[in-house]
């Protein structure tokens, strides 16, 4: 029985000197972007890009499918919104609190779900996330259907005025980059390589003496923590935490973002988040049909583009490089 056999893209095909170049270009684009594009839209993309990258750390590098990541994202959004609004904490500390809530929830989910593999893991995390959803729906501090609104944007540092959208954008960009670097660092660490080994062949990794469940658990908690950071960031940037963030549909959305961009690629989830958020922003007038289109993209991705956009592109470049080499 196959358990972990996702279509994963081979290692990056860009050559070493190209990486800093491309990263520099991307960074330059990110710095110029808020003067060209609506900063609110960009913040939305960055928050979801961080969420998708955190999810990809689990699905792409550890080969684990979670269908309950909305719980970490939305749960942390509530926690940080509560901290910022009711407890009067500055944005930075609220983010830390949200992250911590993601870590704790992740530890609980991981402890329960790690007993089963593959598809069961997805179903169990889905059930656990539903508990968080119902708590968010019924608890006092979450504000029920209204959510928590009017969350203040207040930085610890007096010279940063987060009330300004552009300043807020750069704040979001910095947090995103911190999270992204943490993921990069994890993926390229010995721990990251071990995760890939588990993904490729779990029994073999276990037979080599690694405590497979412990590493999977750690990957899960790490992914939940960073998803929490993304959710907290979104709550601060948009001054709002609602049921939408914790809903079951959000868990599916992050899977789709990762799948469109490319499971197991470094920048795929960012691209996927950008595409999906752009679709939701600019096709909003079509209402419910956007979800139909998303569903159709899901189907097409699974049937024809399992490597995702970045993955297919990388595979194409590799084929060309091979042909040129011959």
């Amino acid at each position: 029985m196959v358990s972990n056999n996702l279509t994963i893209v081979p290692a990056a095909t860009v050559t070493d000197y190209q990486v800093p170049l491309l990263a520099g270009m991307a960074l330059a684009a990110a710095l110029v972007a808020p003067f060209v594009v609506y900063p609110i839209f960009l913040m939305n993309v960055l928050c979801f890009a961080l969420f998708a990258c955190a999810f990809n750390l689990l699905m792409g590098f550890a080969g684990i499918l979670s269908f309950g990541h909305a719980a970490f994202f939305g749960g942390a959004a509530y926690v940080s919104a509560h901290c910022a609004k009711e407890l009067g904490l500055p944005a930075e500390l609220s983010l830390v609190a949200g992250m911590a809530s993601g870590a704790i929830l992740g530890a609980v989910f991981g402890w329960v779900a790690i007993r089963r593999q593959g598809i069961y893991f997805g179903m169990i995390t889905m059930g656990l996330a539903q508990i968080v959803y119902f708590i968010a729906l019924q608890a006092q501090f979450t504000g029920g259907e209204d959510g928590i609104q009017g969350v203040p944007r207040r930085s610890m540092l007096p010279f940063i005025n987060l009330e300004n959208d552009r300043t807020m954008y750069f704040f979001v960009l910095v947090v995103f980059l911190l999270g992204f670097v943490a993921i990069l660092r994890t993926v390229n660490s010995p721990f990251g390589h071990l995760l890939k080994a588990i993904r490729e062949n779990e029994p073999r990794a276990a037979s080599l003496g690694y405590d497979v469940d412990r590493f999977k658990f750690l990957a899960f908690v790490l992914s939940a923590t960073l998803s929490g950071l993304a959710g907290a960031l979104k709550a601060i940037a948009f001054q709002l935490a609602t049921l939408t963030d914790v809903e079951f549909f959000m868990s599916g959305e992050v899977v789709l973002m990762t799948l469109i961009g490319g499971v197991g690629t470094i920048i795929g989830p960012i691209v996927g988040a950008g595409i999906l958020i752009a679709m939701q922003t600019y096709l909003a007038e079509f209402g419910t049909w956007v979800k139909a289109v998303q569903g159709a993209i899901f189907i097409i991705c699974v049937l024809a583009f399992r490597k995702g956009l970045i993955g297919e592109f990388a595979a194409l470049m590799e084929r060309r490089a091979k042909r040129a080499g011959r």
Partner: protein
Amino acid sequence: MIPILNIPTDVLLGQLLLGLINGSFYAILSLGLSVIFGLLNIINFTHGAQYMMGAFVSWMLLTYFGIGYWPALLISPVVVGITGVILERFILRRIYDIDHIYGFLLTYGVALVIESIFRGQYGVSGQPYRAPALLSGVIDLDFMVLPIYRLWVVAASIAVCAGTWLIIEKTRLGSYLRAATERPVLVRAFGVNVPRMIMITYGFGVALAAFAGVLAAPLYQVSSIMGSNLMVVVFAVVVIGGMGSIGGSIVAGFGLGILEGLTKVFYPPGSNLVVFVAMILILTLRPAGLFGKAR
């Protein structure tokens, strides 16, 4: 009237019946999932949407063609079952040899498309659907009042579950099915058309979901979102019962429905959560589910 733990007996029995009804739907839906999973190795995420379609088709039959409940009980599962067969033949068949996770994602995508189409056409508000005259009304049992339709739902679902169990465990067709679940290649070598069997099995599982949808139509409002929330609960039921176990789905379905009903009596806010809490407990004690085999 003897109160039990300060709860009047009629309230307790009323909630038990409601729990049994929810359990009927859980049982039929998780049974369909198990049948499909057994042969296709796919967790059919579209199941909730197909349940919704079952209810909608019977509503359409009544609204557009004036065809009532009894014919709909047969026509609707057949129609939705055929859409299932088409889905299997042209889409699902392509992904059998890749990781099961993709089947899950693919059927999730199909569910999104179907639900959005129905939402686009009919909105999220429910359409009322009346129970047939024969099944309306109540039986007054002196200590409590029993709506006939609810009794019918429980009876019909027990009959369908028992019938499915008998077909799979006791008939020749069922023995082919079980054999193909274990060793598809070998069964194929004996001259059984396994791909066709898979197609029919999927259609049958989908028809079960649609049947549950027709049963649900007079009880709940027929709406585009009626399946999606139910689905998450049914997945938990399946995890508890043990995936692929026919008996397990039926027992877990009814059992959890009753548990939910009882929770509504003793601790109402917990009734939404109790199934998931039960899932956590079962997983810590028996990771493979109550009736599942560890694999």
